[in-house]
Every structure is written in structure tokens, then in C-alpha cells.
């Protein structure tokens, strides 16, 4: 570039010198022939011709012409933008918001849905799932089948299994915190083809029984917890009181293979018993708990791999029938097959499943907003090109070619697009992180890599170019139509006004769809909040503890939980307290079992009632404010030796004949219990799920706790005080116990609506933006009309028309435009908004309230937007208007 500029300057100087020399020679020649000095110089110039023109023509031969004209156009465009500052600022801002919003959503979409794992050749990865009896694919499978596939397959170059360890008590260097872990089989890192950032990664030899425990840190955790210190290698860290040696750090951009779940530690599967205190079901052919991924050998098709793996899987399952007595297990062995899918984007991810569709929807909505912004700018440019008609006519008359003028006008548009795009990209970069926080409401570091990659950049530039063409091309083509009969004061042709008008009509229609969409999401969120759940939401605090994290297990752990509950009941402000496994709103658990006998009625395995279950402490329903329909709650006398009792939900109670209290209920194959109470229906774990059959077991009848408990406290006073008091109460039982996930039920509920809130808040912001754009568009159009028809109005008033008449004429025209737009928009909305149906809760896409609201909002706005110019029209001084030219 600099060399080019240097050469360019040298050429220029050469040419000047050359011409100078020529003129000097010529002058000398003429003086020698006897002419006076002055005449000679003038004659030499005359003979030479137009010096700047010669320079210009010569420059053309250097071939920088295209660049030079572009540079000229850019400078010209910048000068114009500087002159029309308001217009420029508005257009750039509108574009930046449009492009920025779209790109921010795309960044999320890219990171969550499109981007392959940052590993070697992600295209070769596969993820395995099991599917049987026409059900949905399930990514969890039993271990023996995996082991058989690993040993016998010929089609894969690597295969590994993994299981998540959601919370570990990690202590090192004298401090402890709760970290998340992942346990993997030895081929994990090698199959992914990762290189360590430090030390070494796991190898198959680490996963052999009897090996010393080792752990690998994620890069993020290494930075966060150890400040990126290289001295960490070889140090010991305790995970739930079991010692592990840190051997390495994973590469920087790697966040694990499950989108949205970023493990801080990766340890070999054989180390899990030391961490969890339970033996792994490595021999159980029907316990589904590991997730499997692999890498196909080059040249092997997915189909070939599927056939082979399915063969091995089924062979192992069928061979294991002999070891089981359960009908369900035998059915599993007969029906379940392996399905293989591409694993380039990693394993099945709840985050991806939850957001993929919503993000696609938002992308569409924001695309609409951007289209709206582009149309708006197009309309503004169009009215400006009207004002510049004279300039353009003169330039065309002076011999500029139409293409040249179009090019220049397009350069101006491109300048707007580039400025808006750059600002938008910056907004997107800042905004996507904010959006993600809004979406996941996760505290701390977000386990998603949002750095822009080529896809994001390509997307943003593509969007930029398209919008530039939308708003630039039309006015450029329009503005340069040969205006031979152009004269000042001529009434603009009808066609042009029609074009302006249709631009505003389409803006109105688009805005209506967007605003209505926002309305739908608001209504849906409202419905969710006001949904009757069967429990009281306010003044309820929940917090979890896990004795396993401090190494306490079995009956001691249960005893500890009981003492914590007793302590919690004594804290000031606690009106009542209890314990459960599954919280009223939960994203961690959804427990399912099957009821096989109701009262005296026995059900076959196939006809069994699928129930959700929970484990509760005494006084749970009093704490949540759920009434007992019949019988009683657990009273605190439940223990391992006591008679086995159960509470059922109303839904399940309907399966009994007569009062269920006192009747028998059989869960699974051998768990018979007496029903002691019927609780009113509540929504289990999710606000959206309809009430279902639920079985409640006593938490404290267990020998050893199967799941760590979540305490629930009904408090008076503030949540902060209660949380602090609860922390102190827990510390009185064991100072090593760390409460986690302390949240009010309201907060937990709000977080469970994260996706709905994301959709609603974004569509509200951008709906408002669209609304405003339409107002500006309509105002611009009306003002322009008034300006153009000023003389006409003046004349009419001079001839006796009342000002109100003129005002009405203007308003009528605007009303026509707006109503047409609204009519088209309504029709489009009714069709297009069907796509949001799956994202709505108990709201129809054609919701009349949302539609009315949107129409009223737009009508009110357009009244304001049209009224101001209309009033101006009615105040035109007839004499001034007529004297105008």
C-alpha cells in the first residue's frame, strides 16, 4: 500500500517534470526562431493543449483509475455525510442496531448450534445414542455394551465414554470451592485429538484399576483458580476428600464436548468411586448412565459404523438377558438399537436443544428489523435524492455517465453500510455476551466461546452488503433516471410518490408483525408467571448441601441432614422448614418410576403408571403451602425401620377406588407401601408441565441418602438475612458443609423462564425500535409530501380552502398508507407467526389481545407522526407558498 502511494507520487512528479521540460524546450525553440519571450511561452502552451487534461489522460494509462474514482467517491460521500449529520447519524445508528442485533444473535447461534468442537478434525466425530420401541433417542447407555464396542469394533479409530460429576468439593492450596467434573474413559483426549496447554492429558493407562488418581484441569479453571501458574503440574488436589495429582491442562478454547457444560476437572472413570463413594455399575448391562462418542476411521461411512456398533451392542445386551429377571430389561435387550449421529458439534446438549429454535426465531425477527431499518433508510435516501435532483441533473448534463453517478450514489450508501456495520459488529461483540448471560442466568464464567470467527464476520458482512443493496440501489436507480424535462417546481411524478408510499406500507406491515410478536411473547411470559402451580412462590428460600463433598457418606450423612433440618427450623424468621430431593422448580432432577399396583388392582409392566417421584421431609407441604386433600403429611417418625408409607398426588389418587388413604401402592417390582396422604396437585419440577401423577417418599426413611437434599424454608423478613442465618445454622452442624444453590423460589422460577424472558425482552427492545422506525418513516414521508405540495396547498387556501381541510387532506393520505400497511401486516402476521407457536405458552399465535395491542400502538404512533407535518401544511402562508419560485 505504502509502496503503491510512493510510486504514485513519483510518477506524478516525473510527469510534471517531463511536461515542464517540454514547455521549456518549445519556448526556447520559438525564441530561437525570433519570437518575443512572453509570446513564445504562451504559444508553447497553446501548442501543448490542456495541461491538466493531458495529465489526467496520462494518469488513466497508469491504471489506478478505479481506485482513484472510488477514493474520490468516498471523500465526496464523507463530505455529504458530514453535511447531513442528522441523517447520517440516524441511518448509521439504525443500521448499527439492526446489524448489531442480528449479528449478536447469530454469534450465539453460531457458538451454540453451528460451531464444531475445537478439536482435531471434528467432522470425524460421532455421538452414539440408543433408541428402542419407537421412543426418542437417549444418549445414556450401559457400560458393558460400551466396553464390548470398544474392544471389538473395526470401524472406529477411537471411542470413549463419559459421565458428568456436577459438583465436587475441590480443595487445593488451603482453599476449597465447588467445581464441576467429568469422568471419562482413557481414550477421551486422544480420540478428540487435543494437545495439552500444559503437562499431559489423560491416557488409557490412567484409566486402569489400581492406577494413582490423576486429574486434568480445564484452561478456564486453571486461569480462574490457579492464575495460570505453571507450577500446578504435579500438585495434589482433593476432590471430595480423595486425592488427585494434577497432570495437565486442556487447551484454551476447549470447553468439553457438551455445549453449555464446561467441566473444571477431567478425571479417569476409574477414579469416580473415590469421589462419589459408590461403586460404578460397570457390569450392569441395563443401567443407562454413560454417554459415548467416537471417531470413525477415514473412509468409513456412518452407516457402516452404525451397523457394526449396533451388532456388538445388541449381542452384548441379549447375552445379558440371562443375568436379569426383569421384563423391562429383557424388553430393552430385544428392542434397543444404537443410533449414530455426527458428533462434530459435540454430544447432546440441553442448552443447544433449548435454544436452537428460539435463536433461529430471533434471527428471523431481527432480520425483519434490519429489513425495516433498510427500507427506512431507502425512503430517506429517496427523498434526499429528490432534493439532489438538480445536482444530479447537472452532473448528467455535464456528461457524467449514468453508471458513474449510480456508482457514486452507491458509494455513499456503502459508506453508511460500512459505518453502521462496523458499529454493529462492535455492538454484537459486546451484546452477545450480555445476551448469553440473559439466556442462561449463569453466574461467573460462561462456558461458551463467543469470539467472532469467520462465520460471524462473513455473516455480518453479508448482512451489511444485502442491506446496503436494499437501501442503496433503489434510490440510486430512481434518482438517476434521465430527467430531461426537469425543471424547478415541477410536480413529482405519481410513480415516485407511489414508491415512497409502498416503502412506508411495507415498513408498517413489517413493524406490525414484529410488535405483535413481542406482544405474544409478553403474553406468554405473563401466562407462565400467573400459572397456578399448586404451591406458594413468595417468601420461600431453598438451598442445597451435600455431605458427600466433605467425605461423609451413608447413615452419618443422613443423620447430618436431619440435624441440619433441626437447626434450620430454629433460625429467626423461619416460619417452617423442610427438605426434598427435587425442588418445586428444578433443572437438576426429574425422577421417574413406575407404579405397578394401585389399591388391589395389579397392573402389567406395560400398563404401569409412569409417575414422577420426590423424597420429602416432614412438614414439606406446610412449607410450600400445598393443601393436603386427604390424610396427613410425613410427621418425622419415618426412618429405615418404620413401616413404609407414601403420599400421592391428586392425579394419582384418581386411579384408586374410594379414599386412597390406607390403601396399598406398589412401585416398581417390589416396593409396596401404604398411602398415608393425598396432596393437592402441584406442577412437578417445571411450571410448564401439566400436573401429573406424583409419588412422594419420606426422605428420612433411607438408609443412606441417594441424592443430596435441598432445604426449603418459608421465611418472614428478607431472603438475604435468612440465607445468612441458614449458612450459620449449617456451619453449627459441620463447618465443612458448604451450602450451594441458595435461591428464593421466585428467583429459581424466573431462571427457569430464561428462554421465554430472552425472547420476550429482545422482541420488546427490537419491537420498540421497529415501532420508532416506522414513526420516523411515516413522518419523513408526510413531511416530504407537504414540502412538495406546499404550492398546491397554498393555492388551495388562497382559493378559500379552510386550513382544517388541508390538514385533513394530508392526514387522509397518511391514514391510507398506514391502514394499508396494517391490513397487509395483519394478514402476514396471522400466517408468519404460526412459526412461534412452539415457543409460546398457552397463547395462540393469532392472539387477539396481542394483535389489537400492536395495531393500537402503531395507529397511535402514526397519528402523532402524521399530525405534525399536517399541521404545518395547514399553516402554510398562501402568499409565501405562491411566491416561492
Amino acid at each position, binding site marked *: 500500500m505504502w509502496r503503491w502511494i510512493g510510486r504514485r507520487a513519483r510518477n506524478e512528479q*516525473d*510527469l510534471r*517534470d*517531463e*511536461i515542464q*521540460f*517540454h514547455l*521549456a*524546450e*518549445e519556448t526556447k*525553440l520559438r525564441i530561437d526562431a525570433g519570437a518575443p519571450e512572453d509570446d513564445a511561452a504562451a504559444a508553447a502552451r497553446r*501548442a*501543448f*493543449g*490542456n*495541461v491538466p*487534461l*493531458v495529465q489526467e*489522460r*496520462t494518469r*488513466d*494509462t*497508469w*491504471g489506478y483509475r478505479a481506485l482513484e474514482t472510488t477514493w474520490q467517491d468516498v471523500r465526496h460521500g464523507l463530505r455529504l455525510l458530514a453535511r447531513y449529520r442528522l441523517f447520517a447519524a440516524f441511518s448509521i445508528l439504525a443500521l448499527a442496531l439492526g446489524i448489531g442485533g442480528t449479528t449478536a444473535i447469530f454469534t450465539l447461534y453460531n457458538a451454540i448450534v453451528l460451531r464444531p468442537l475445537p478439536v482435531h478434525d471434528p467432522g470425524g466425530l460421532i455421538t452414539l445414542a440408543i433408541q428402542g420401541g419407537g421412543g426418542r433417542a437417549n444418549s445414556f447407555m450401559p457400560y458393558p455394551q460400551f466396553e464390548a464396542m470398544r474392544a471389538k469394533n473395526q470401524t472406529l479409530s477411537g471411542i470413549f465414554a463419559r459421565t458428568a460429576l456436577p459438583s465436587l468439593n475441590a480443595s487445593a492450596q488451603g482453599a476449597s470451592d465447588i467445581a464441576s467434573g467429568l469422568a471419562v474413559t482413557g481414550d477421551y483426549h486422544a480420540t478428540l485429538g487435543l494437545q495439552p496447554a500444559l503437562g499431559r492429558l489423560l491416557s488409557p493407562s490412567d484409566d486402569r484399576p489400581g492406577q494413582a488418581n490423576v486429574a486434568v484441569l480445564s484452561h478456564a479453571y486453571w486461569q480462574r483458580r490457579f492464575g495460570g501458574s505453571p507450577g500446578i503440574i504435579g500438585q495434589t488436589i482433593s476432590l471430595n476428600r480423595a486425592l488427585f495429582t494434577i497432570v495437565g491442562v486442556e487447551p484454551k478454547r476447549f470447553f468439553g464436548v457438551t455445549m453449555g457444560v464446561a467441566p473444571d476437572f477431567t478425571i479417569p472413570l476409574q477414579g469416580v468411586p473415590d469421589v462419589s463413594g459408590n461403586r460404578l455399575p460397570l457390569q450392569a448391562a441395563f443401567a443407562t448412565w454413560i454417554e459415548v462418542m467416537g471417531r470413525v476411521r477415514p473412509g468409513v461411512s456412518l452407516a457402516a459404523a452404525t451397523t457394526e456398533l449396533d451388532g456388538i451392542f445388541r449381542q452384548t445386551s441379549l447375552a445379558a438377558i440371562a443375568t436379569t429377571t426383569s421384563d423391562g430389561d429383557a424388553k430393552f435387550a430385544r428392542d434397543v438399537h444404537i443410533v449414530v449421529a455426527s458428533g462434530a458439534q459435540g454430544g447432546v446438549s440441553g442448552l443447544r436443544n433449548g435454544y436452537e429454535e428460539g435463536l433461529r426465531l430471533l434471527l428471523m425477527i431481527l432480520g425483519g428489523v434490519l429489513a425495516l431499518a433498510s427500507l427506512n433508510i431507502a425512503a430517506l435516501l429517496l427523498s434526499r435524492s429528490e432534493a439532489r435532483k438538480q445536482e444530479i441533473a447537472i452532473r448528467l448534463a455535464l456528461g457524467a455517465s449514468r453508471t458513474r453517478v449510480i456508482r457514486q450514489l452507491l458509494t455513499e450508501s456503502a459508506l453508511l453500510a460500512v459505518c453502521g456495520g462496523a458499529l454493529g459488529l462492535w455492538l454484537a461483540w459486546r451484546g452477545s455476551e450480555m445476551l448469553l448471560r440473559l439466556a442462561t442466568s449463569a453466574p461467573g464464567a460462561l462456558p461458551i466461546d463467543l469470539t467472532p470467527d469467520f462465520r460471524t464476520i462473513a455473516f455480518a458482512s453479508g448482512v451489511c452488503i444485502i442491506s446496503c443493496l436494499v437501501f442503496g440501489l433503489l434510490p440510486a436507480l430512481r434518482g438517476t433516471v434521465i430527467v430531461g424535462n426537469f425543471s424547478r417546481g415541477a410536480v413529482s411524478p405519481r410513480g415516485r410518490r407511489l414508491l415512497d408510499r409502498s416503502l412506508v406500507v411495507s415498513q408498517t406491515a413489517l413493524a406490525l408483525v414484529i410488535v405483535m410478536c413481542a406482544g405474544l411473547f409478553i403474553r406468554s411470559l405473563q401466562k407462565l408467571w400467573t400459572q397456578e402451580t399448586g404451591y406458594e412462590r413468595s417468601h420461600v428460600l431453598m438451598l442445597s448441601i451435600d455431605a458427600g463433598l466433605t467425605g461423609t457418606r451413608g447413615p452419618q450423612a443422613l443423620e447430618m441432614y436431619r440435624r441440619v433440618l433441626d437447626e434450620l427450623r430454629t433460625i429467626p424468621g423461619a416460619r417452617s422448614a423442610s427438605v426434598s430431593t427435587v425442588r418445586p422448580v428444578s433443572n437438576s432432577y426429574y425422577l421417574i418410576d413406575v407404579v405397578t399396583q394401585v389399591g388391589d388392582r395389579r397392573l402389567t409392566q406395560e400398563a404401569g403408571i409412569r409417575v414422577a417421584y420426590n423424597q420429602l421431609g416432614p412438614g414439606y407441604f406446610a412449607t410450600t403451602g400445598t393443601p393436603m386433600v386427604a390424610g396427613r403429611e410425613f410427621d418425622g417418625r419415618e426412618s429405615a425401620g418404620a413401616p413404609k408409607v407414601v403420599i400421592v398426588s391428586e392425579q394419582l389418587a384418581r386411579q384408586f377406588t374410594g379414599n386412597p388413604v390406607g390403601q396399598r401402592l406398589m412401585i416398581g417390582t417390589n416396593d409396596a407401601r401404604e398411602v398415608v396422604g393425598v396432596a393437592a396437585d402441584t406442577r412437578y419440577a417445571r411450571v410448564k408441565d401439566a400436573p401429573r401423577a406424583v409419588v412422594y417418599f419420606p426422605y428420612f426413611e433411607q438408609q443412606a441418602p441417594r441424592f443430596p437434599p435441598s432445604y426449603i424454608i418459608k421465611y418472614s423478613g428478607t431472603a438475604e438475612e435468612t440465607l445468612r442465618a441458614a449458612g450459620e445454622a449449617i456451619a453449627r452442624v459441620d463447618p465443612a458443609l458448604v451450602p450451594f444453590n441458595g435461591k428464593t423460589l421466585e428467583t429459581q422460577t424466573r431462571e427457569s423462564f430464561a428462554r421465554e424472558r430472552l425472547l420476550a425482552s429482545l422482541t420488546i427492545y427490537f419491537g420498540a425500535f421497529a415501532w420508532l422506525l416506522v414513526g420516523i418513516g411515516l413522518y419523513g414521508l408526510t413531511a416530504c409530501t407537504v414540502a412538495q405540495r406546499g404550492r398546491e396547498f397554498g393555492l388551495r387556501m388562497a382559493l378559500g380552502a379552510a386550513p382544517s381541510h388541508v390538514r385533513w387532506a394530508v392526514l387522509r393520505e397518511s391514514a391510507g398508507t398506514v391502514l394499508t400497511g396494517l391490513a397487509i401486516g395483519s394478514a402476514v402476521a396471522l400466517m408468519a407467526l404460526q412459526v412461534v407457536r412452539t415457543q409460546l405458552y398457552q397463547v395462540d399465535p393469532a392472539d387477539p389481545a396481542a394483535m389489537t395491542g400492536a395495531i393500537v400502538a402503531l395507529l397511535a404512533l402514526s397519528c402523532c407522526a402524521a399530525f405534525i407535518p399536517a399541521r404545518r401544511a395547514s399553516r402554510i402562508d398562501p402568499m409565501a407558498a405562491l411566491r416561492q419560485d
Partner: protein
Amino acid sequence: MVMRGRDDNRIDLLQGTLDMMILRALAWGPQHGHGIGLWIRTTSDELLQVEHGSLYPALHRLLRQRLIAAEWKVTENKQRAKYYRLTPAGKKQLTAAQSRWDQLVAVVARVMRPA
């Protein structure tokens, strides 16, 4: 490009003719722009009066086509001037142009004065 006869009758110089004449002028040896113009004028007995300026775009075009090369030298009068000379490609081009021109003249002459 326009050339003027003595009586100011405008005749459009045929496309490429000026280029050809420049190459011809340089066949005698390196020359600067003014010298080339002077040679064309004197050789044509002042009948061809090329607008002096129009030489330069042509010269730069030929430079770009690498038919001629340029070099700053000092003249006999101790002045800096840009001297052009033919390149081998330019020499070849001149020969080709010369024979094409001869053909053209002969053919046009035959058409204009049929025997």
C-alpha cells in the same frame, strides 16, 4: 486525437497511428518527448501538427505495454530530460505496424484510384 492540416481541416488520426509514429521516431535512437514531437512535425514538413500534449498519454501507454523504456538523462544543454527508447518488443511491434501500414496504404490507394 486530432491533427490539423495547414488549412485547419480536421482529420481524425487513425487509431494507433500516433503510437506507430512514436515507435518510428524512436527507431533513430533514444529521444525525449519534445524531440519526438519535433521529429514528427519536421519529418511531415509541418503538415502533421499533433497537439503536443497528446504525445504524453500515448508515451505512457506504450511504456505500460513495455514497447518502450524510459530513463532520466542529462541533455547537451545540461538539462534533465526523460529519454525514451525502443525495447526489443517495441522493435518487433514497429516492424509489424510498418508492414500493416504499407498494406493499408496500398489497399486504400487501390480503392481510391482504381486502375
